[in-house]
């Protein structure tokens, strides 16, 4: 019988090795899955993991898909470290797109160099305003922020549908539920010529770098970490839970709102009812895959983007049903999440009793109270 013994410090070699172990396990499990389904496993996995890296265009698409995941994931990981559970980034993303997009449509067809910054500001503020609701309800009424932010996601999606069916509908669009196409000044500049990759990816990288500095150097970042790791200790040390909750929600909400606006002003170029496609939820997984560390989040975001694009490629090239991609992705996530255990624990043969120890900080969740 084997037992897990907590490590004093996260094991550094394991920290870097576990993603590869997880990918290796996924490849083995995928081999079985594809063989059972009667598909060539080597071809399938080559299409999912390597083909998207082999062309200029699909590399650019990786940036398109990865940018919102990183931007949202970075913001969420700051809150998660502090034990503040914003599950509703998807809603803040949607509201950000609505607010920023409304600015573009409000000035239509006018514009100028100032338009895009103004839209970005409106998007970020919109996301923050939507995130302020769970923050307020938690700090004022102790309402569980997981549930409040989740419920608000549904409300936001319905609100977007309501607006593009009505107030924001394209007047020349035969009453179809979508807005006008944004004017040129309201579209994000391209990063790579001839592709859809835009400067949103640079902003995402910048956000990750800023988050790194914020968490490592600044006082509030220190507070946020203490609150997550030991809420009571934090309270004794005089840190204000209220401030932490608010700053976590403002950062994650603002970044999610910005990501939403970038999506509307970038690859989509208008407001459509189906704008939210789940980035806000996927970013939660991305945050954990990246171990709540900004640099890790960047890699995790790109990995998730790869599996999505690779899944589409596999569907096109060997008619793998999209359900298979979902199963394969689920397995990859399970292995990645499970292999984390090796970072914080050692596997030893059972025998000598050891002193109980509490779980690693990152795996904790503090309820509202």
């Amino acid at each position, binding site marked *: 019988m084997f037992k897990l013994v907590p490590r004093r410090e996260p094991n550094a070699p394991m920290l870097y*090795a576990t993603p*590869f172990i997880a*990918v*290796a396990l996924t*490849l083995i499990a995928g081999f079985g899955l594809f063989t059972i389904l009667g598909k060539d496993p*080597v*071809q399938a*996995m*080559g*299409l999912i*993991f*390597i*083909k998207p890296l*082999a*062309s200029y*265009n*699909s590399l650019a*698409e990786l940036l*398109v*898909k990865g940018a919102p995941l990183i931007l949202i994931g970075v913001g969420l990981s700051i809150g998660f470290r502090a034990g503040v559970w914003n599950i509703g980034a998807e809603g803040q993303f949607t509201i950000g797109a609505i607010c920023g997009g409304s600015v573009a449509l409000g000035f239509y067809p006018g514009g100028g160099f100032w338009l895009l910054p103004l839209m970005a500001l409106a998007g970020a503020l919109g996301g923050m305003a939507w995130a302020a609701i769970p923050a307020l309800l938690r700090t004022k009424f102790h309402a569980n922020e997981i549930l409040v932010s989740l419920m608000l996601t549904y409300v936001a999606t*319905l609100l977007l*549908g309501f607006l593009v*069916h*009505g107030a924001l509908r394209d007047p020349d669009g*035969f*009453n*179809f*539920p*979508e807005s006008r*196409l944004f004017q040129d000044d309201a579209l994000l500049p391209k990063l790579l010529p001839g592709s*859809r990759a835009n400067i949103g990816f640079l902003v995402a990288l910048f956000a990750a770098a800023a988050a790194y500095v914020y968490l490592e150097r600044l006082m509030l970042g220190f507070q946020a970490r203490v609150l997550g790791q030991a809420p009571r200790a934090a309270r004794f040390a005089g840190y204000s839970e209220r401030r932490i909750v608010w700053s976590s929600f403002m950062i994650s909400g603002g970044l999610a709102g910005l990501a939403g606006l970038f*999506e509307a002003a*970038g*690859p*989509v*170029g*208008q407001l*459509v*009812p*189906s*704008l*939210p*496609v789940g980035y806000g939820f996927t970013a939660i997984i991305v945050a954990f895959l990246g171990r709540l560390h900004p640099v890790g989040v960047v890699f995790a975001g790109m990995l998730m983007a790869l599996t*999505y*694009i690779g899944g*589409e*490629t596999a*569907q*096109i*090239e060997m*008619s793998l*049903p*999209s*359900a298979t991609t979902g199963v394969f992705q689920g397995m990859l996530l399970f292995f990645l999440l499970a292999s984390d255990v090796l970072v914080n624990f050692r596997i030893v043969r059972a025998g000598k009793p050891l002193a109980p120890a509490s779980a690693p900080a990152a795996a904790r969740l503090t309820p509202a109270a």
Partner: protein
Amino acid sequence: MNRVSRLFAGLGAALALGLAASGAVRADDPLKVAFVYTGPVGDHGWSYQHNVGRQAVEKAFGDKVKTTYVENVSDGPDAERVIEQLAAGGAKLIFTTSFGFMNPTLKVAKRHPEVKFEHATGFKRADNLATYNARFYEGRYVAGVVAAKMSKSGTIGYIASFPIPEVVMGVNAAYLGAKTVNPNIKIKIIWVSSWFDPGKEADAAKALINQGADVLMQHTDSPAAMKLAEERGVYAIGQSSDMADFGPRAQLTSVEDHWDEYYIARVKAVMDGTWTSTDTWGGLKDGMVVLAPYGKAVPEDVARLADETKQAIVDGRLKPFTGPLNKQDGSVWLKQGESAPDKDLLSMNFYVEGVEGGLPK
């Protein structure tokens, strides 16, 4: 780690071989035709029927074509990438089958002038981008006639998805068809704000039956309402595909979408080099809209009346939207003898006079 890197190396080698193989294009290579679906091919509605069309293409041309499809593509930012990938991957003709794919298709079409694109239900065209749609309202008009004939309570229940022109047109056409046989017919409408939520569709069907509807019509994609009608002993009109499997007793008929012939014709046009960018809006006459065989419950006189109505539409003697016709608020829409121009139909956002309830904005 060694095993992992070897596995990766193996994958890389396999891929390199694959790329090399696909690099050499021969003149007699099959024509690559691609389809992009918004739902799963197993939805038994919209995407399912498009996939039936794809299979018909494969059957008609055998190894002269190679078809491929991508399902569950959301209308948002993913669509453009998928279409681009198909175009870059050598597809010569690409069908994109959801209204939400309109702008992404247009963008990709501009980048790939050598590829032909066909977008369903949209209104934007280019030299290499054609559009096509079906006049579902013609089928719904006939279905309305059948429904009103079969209804004892004088109330038709209608499960609607989103208040876009397509759907509003269907409600109005069904009502106008029904009114020709029963001037007092009532139509009760529930908007479920979803194309596909079987549970909600079934609940809506139940609510309609409870409020007196004994024939159900739907403009949503799952067979849930048909199944419920079968259970509750009322009648229903199917949507998109023949749903008789789900309601062998309940189904009176079904307003089916048939893309087979259109798809085959367009693939042939590309092969012959005669393809041009067109705007097709086919109806009963073109076989794009087909009524499923009448159910056992439909008596002969009703079937005959429905066939006559259908024939009148096919011959062009009957246009469902013909004046005198007022809008719901009583204002005049069409004067005596005037038929609605397609432009009016394609932007319809009002109920006609006689339909009760409010149209959600």
